[in-house]
């Protein structure tokens, strides 16, 4: 029989989409942090002993309930929809920038595109087409394409990326491409700025 505190914590973690810090749990359940920690351990043990389909874990931001990895095939069958809808223009541009210039940071993507890349980067990360790859000297996250990206584009390696349309490949291909993209991006950004000025 589960005691009242772990039972309450189970309900709270069930309802929380993100990990919950012990302090927040303690406050909500009107208990001491130590009591909460002990109760969470009790729950962890209960789940393991009884062989539940849920797992209770301590993550970076606190404690979180998740489904057991064993259930993933069934979960995929029930819930996973094909996550390969056609790419929007913004997503295609962002993905192309990452693919040809990787690793590349978000501010650089924004400079090249002339508009913010927040939403497109988020979607591409979520779909697993791009992934983080360290930090730039200025601390910005750098992105590269994933192996899933190669699979979904039918590429064996990045070297198979097609030549840039309307661009003459040269020995300093990448450097030149980056320069060219930034110049074009700034030109576009400039237009946006001047038309804003008139508007």
């Amino acid at each position, binding site marked *: 029989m589960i005691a009242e505190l772990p039972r309450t914590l189970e*309900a709270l973690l*069930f*309802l*929380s*989409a993100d990990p919950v810090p012990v302090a927040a749990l303690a406050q909500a359940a009107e208990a001491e942090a130590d009591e909460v920690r002990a109760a969470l351990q009790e729950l962890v043990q209960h789940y393991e002993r009884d062989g539940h389909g849920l797992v209770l874990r301590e993550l970076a931001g606190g404690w979180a309930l*998740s*489904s057991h990895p064993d259930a*993933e095939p069934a*979960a*995929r069958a029930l*819930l*996973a929809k*094909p*996550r*390969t809808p056609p*790419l929007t*223009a913004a997503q*295609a*541009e962002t*993905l*192309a*920038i990452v*693919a*040809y210039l990787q690793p590349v940071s978000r501010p650089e993507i924004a400079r*090249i*595109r002339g508009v913010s890349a927040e939403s497109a980067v988020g979607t591409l990360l*979520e*779909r*697993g087409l791009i992934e983080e790859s360290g930090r730039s000297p200025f601390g910005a996250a750098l992105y590269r394409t994933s*192996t*899933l990206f190669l*699979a*979904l*584009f*039918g*590429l064996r390696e990045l070297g*198979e*990326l*097609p*030549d*840039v*349309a*309307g*661009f003459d490949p040269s020995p300093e291909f990448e450097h030149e*491409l980056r320069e*060219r*993209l930034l*110049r*074009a*991006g700034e*030109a*576009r950004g400039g*237009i946006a700025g*001047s*038309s804003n000025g*008139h508007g």
Partner: protein
Amino acid sequence: MTLQYLELDLDVFAGPFDLLLTLVLREEVDLLEVDLAEVVIAYIDHLDASGELDLEAATEFLVLIAALLELKSRLLLPGEEIDEVELDPGEAAEELLARLLDAQRYRSAAAHLHARLGEESGYRFRSAPLPPQLRRAPERDAVAVYDPGLLAAAIGHLTTIPPPVDVRHITVATVTVAERLRHLRRLLAAGRFTFAEALGRADRVTIAVTLYALLELHKQGEATWVQDEPFAEITVSRPPEAEPALRAPEAEPAPAIRVPVSAA
């Protein structure tokens, strides 16, 4: 004869026509049950029998029978019109009572739903996005669904330095009346000219500002013009007296026009 002598013998009424009218208006005879065609036939028979046509009586009959027809057709019509039919107080009360009872029934049902929602409020459902691994296509069985050409096209598009934007259409504010005045005075100095010559291939706003400038010249007495017919060519010349004057012309003063486009 008058209509009061028109005797009727209908299914629902037997007696003089004017009595029928009275009874219908008092709702003691249901108009819906009165066959108005029979009334008309009775009237025609009556005319036949009397052998004379009293115009005044005939007119009165037509007016009355038309009113009855209209009243009856309104009673027969469904929908909104029915609301205008006056129910007798008893019927109205019954109708209202039925509606109030119906409303009360659903008010009670609402109280039940309200209580039920309250009881259920302790059962909360989880609302969280799917874990990331379930939001992606599984790598194991990922197949090529995208065309790499898409990336090449996107990057190609991004490398294109866009042409400088044509902003001529928004720089019209730089055409000033002062400038156009100078232009026209230069032309005047060389003699007469046509308005079309003064314009050349100017855009619409320049045309408008040039026209303001021309009117201004007329106002100042520096120019006059001739146009033979509407839309014909306008020939501009110095006025006959051609004094380089600041005086206002006596004849036909041109309307004073405030030019919004940076004349100052």
